């Protein structure tokens, strides 16, 4: 009867064993993320149930969808009482949803080309680190090319417009260095002279390299939303910066003009401005000679969003420490240089989320033009499509499609802005 006096001592290494099944792979993930406590387990099961409940309702609706009938009643005949979407309306009215009901069908390629070119033109600005600077000339030329593609007419019209701006820039570069005012007013005068002369030439040769003209009234569908969104966002950013700087200016008159403008525009609902653009202006304009409706709407939306962007950027300017301004001054930079090289790059970076917020909101607000009888995507759905005998009553499919299109664009903008913020991050990690 000997008692073991030695403690148990293992003499060889145990082979490595895989972790217990509850600690690896999917099981571990489930336990940690979904069933970590009783409360969480209940929530998980409840969420799965809710998800299943939604999918159970939506999935057959999606997969049973009918794509080829020519009216809602035929959809119902095909479905025989089963659950299913009537996507035929999207198939039949596809072009109307994208281009409106009056854009000539044989010309659909032109706005499509303008849309594709938009990506090429925007790339040098959006991905300025990847693309060389001189490609910005493509971006600068884009608005004129896009105008020519979408509206048609002689190429002389956009060409003269571009020449006028080039002339103004040339004069400003030449004289602006010595005297800002001389350069500015000289530039404006040069542009006006070029436009006046060019206008005469363009009037004289309306068929020079002309595409078939399409009137503004014929624009519609998602194309109209894109036109308004892209133009107004890109215009309101520079105007917003100027307004924000103006509001912080020491020059009393400029400051008060900017304050009044911003406060007035912010105090008025966008829809009121749109009614002014559509209805009130019509009383002052001579009958028959209508000042282009899209242009009126673009001016109003741009004014509206530049007031908002100005306030966002003012927030960015205010967030910069005073030392940055003083540092710029101590380097001997003048106002323009200080703003361009030191203040604005930082202020704009801070303002990115706010600016994107305004841009996304603005893009969605372009659907408001449907109340002044313009046929944007929502206007097309609410008016002609739901107003037709064949498709009256198809709500989910149409508005779901509109929501999808807007989501794609808005989510894209949002993702880009987050990527941009990461690119521009210079603070300590």
């Amino acid at each position, binding site marked *: 009867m000997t008692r073991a006096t030695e403690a148990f001592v293992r003499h060889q290494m145990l082979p490595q064993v895989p972790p217990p099944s509850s600690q690896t792979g999917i099981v571990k993930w489930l336990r940690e993320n979904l069933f970590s406590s009783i409360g969480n387990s209940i929530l998980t099961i409840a969420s799965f149930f809710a998800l299943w409940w939604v999918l159970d309702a939506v999935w057959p609706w999606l997969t049973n969808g009918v794509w080829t009938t020519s009216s809602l009643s035929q959809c119902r005949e095909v479905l025989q009482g089963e659950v299913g979407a009537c996507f035929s309306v999207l198939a039949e009215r596809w072009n109307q949803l994208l281009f409106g009901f009056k854009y000539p*069908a044989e010309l659909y390629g032109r706005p499509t080309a303008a849309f594709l070119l938009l990506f090429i033109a925007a790339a040098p600005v959006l991905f300025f680190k990847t693309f060389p600077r001189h490609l910005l000339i493509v971006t600068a030329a884009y608005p004129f090319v896009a105008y020519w593609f979408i509206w048609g007419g002689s190429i002389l019209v956009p060409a003269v417009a571009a020449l006028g701006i080039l002339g103004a820039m040339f004069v400003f570069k030449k004289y602006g260095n010595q005297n800002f005012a001389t350069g500015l007013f000289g530039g404006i005068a040069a542009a006006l002279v070029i436009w006046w002369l060019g206008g005469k030439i363009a009037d004289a040769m309306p068929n020079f390299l002309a595409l078939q003209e399409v009137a503004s009234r014929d624009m519609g569908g998602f194309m109209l939303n894109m036109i308004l969104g892209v133009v107004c966002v890109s215009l309101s950013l520079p105007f917003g910066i100027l307004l924000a700087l103006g509001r912080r200016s020491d020059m009393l008159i400029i400051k008060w003009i900017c304050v009044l403008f911003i406060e007035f525009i912010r105090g008025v609902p966008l829809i009121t401005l749109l009614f002014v653009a559509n209805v009130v202006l*019509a009383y002052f304009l001579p009958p*028959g000679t209508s000042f282009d409706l899209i242009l009126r709407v673009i001016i109003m939306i741009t004014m509206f969003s530049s007031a908002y962007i100005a306030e966002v950027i003012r927030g960015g300017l205010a967030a910069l420490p005073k030392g940055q301004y003083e540092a710029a001054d101590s380097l001997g930079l003048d106002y323009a240089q200080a703003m361009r090289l030191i203040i604005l790059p930082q202020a704009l970076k801070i303002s990115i989320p706010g600016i994107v917020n305004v841009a996304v909101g603005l893009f969605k607000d372009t659907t408001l033009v449907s109340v*002044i009888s313009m046929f944007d995507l929502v206007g097309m759905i609410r008016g002609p499509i739901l107003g037709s005998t064949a498709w009256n009553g198809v*709500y989910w499919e149409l508005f779901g499609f509109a929501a999808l299109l807007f989501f794609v664009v808005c989510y894209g903008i949002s993702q880009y802005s987050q990527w941009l913020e990461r690119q521009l991050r210079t603070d300590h990690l």
Partner: protein
Amino acid sequence: MKKSVLLGAMTVAGLAAGAAAAGTLDDVKARGKLNCGVTTGLVGFAAPDANGNWDGFDVGVCRAVAAAVFGDPTAVEFVPTTGKTRFTALASGEIDMLARNTTWTFSRDTDLKFDFVGVNYYDGQGFMVPKALGVSSAKELNGATVCIQTGTTTELNLADFFRSNNITYTPVPIETNAEALQQYLAGACDAYTTDASGLAASRATFEAPGDHIVLPEIISKEPLGPLVRHGDNDWGDIVRWTLNALIAAEELGITSANVAELSAAPTSNPEINRLLGTEGELGKMVGLDNAWAKNAIAAVGNYGEVFEKNIGANTAIGLARGLNAQWTDGGLLYTPPFR
């Protein structure tokens, strides 16, 4: 340069205003197109199809006027207007006439300075109920919940109707027509009330339209008609008598099918002859070709044909003629004579 543009624009404005005063008909003829205001889309009354061609009951009036003026029913520029933009569009001269299911009321005719040239559809507020409710008259709706669009005259009419009949109801106020229909179908209310034509159009979109009925009571007057600006009575006459011509054509038995035959040579009925221009000079009196009415009828058909094609019993909307029958059939359509 800016100043000169401004001055030029003002000069043009002055000239154009002068020209507008000279006569809408001359403007329309010079333009080669009739600018006709329509809705942005209302089932059966006006909507563009998949190819962008406008069609509908109100569109028929526009096409008839264009045919009367130009002999060409396609010489129309349809200007879609919303309920909010329609009157300014007409007042500012953007459109020459408005055919947009607009109710003829005192204030619109006088204060807004328009002229309603007639009535092309007698509408009125009605009720829709599920058949299962077992109600056959609106007076049996005592204690019912009623879905109603807020901020419309229908709200007031409803209150008046129930009070004068000494019965009670619970209103369920709802913002839009689409939302109201969803609520009604979900059973949130026993009855839905709006214009009878709207009820019929909505009912047509239901999965089982047969399960719902529109009650016979009409509790308000909504005479819908085309209108023009005050101040140009010659143009108003053209629109008024084009509409009357369509109504008279139905009364006289002229259809788009037989109009060519009837207008080829004078018939035994002098009124048909005068209307179709084979006798007398009616067209000259309004400054149009003598075949104006013939062209209008040939283009769109008589009133009954327009009605049947767009909103009649055989369409999805399935409206009965009701008040919109000829006076000889117990309706309200009664055109003054053509002589």
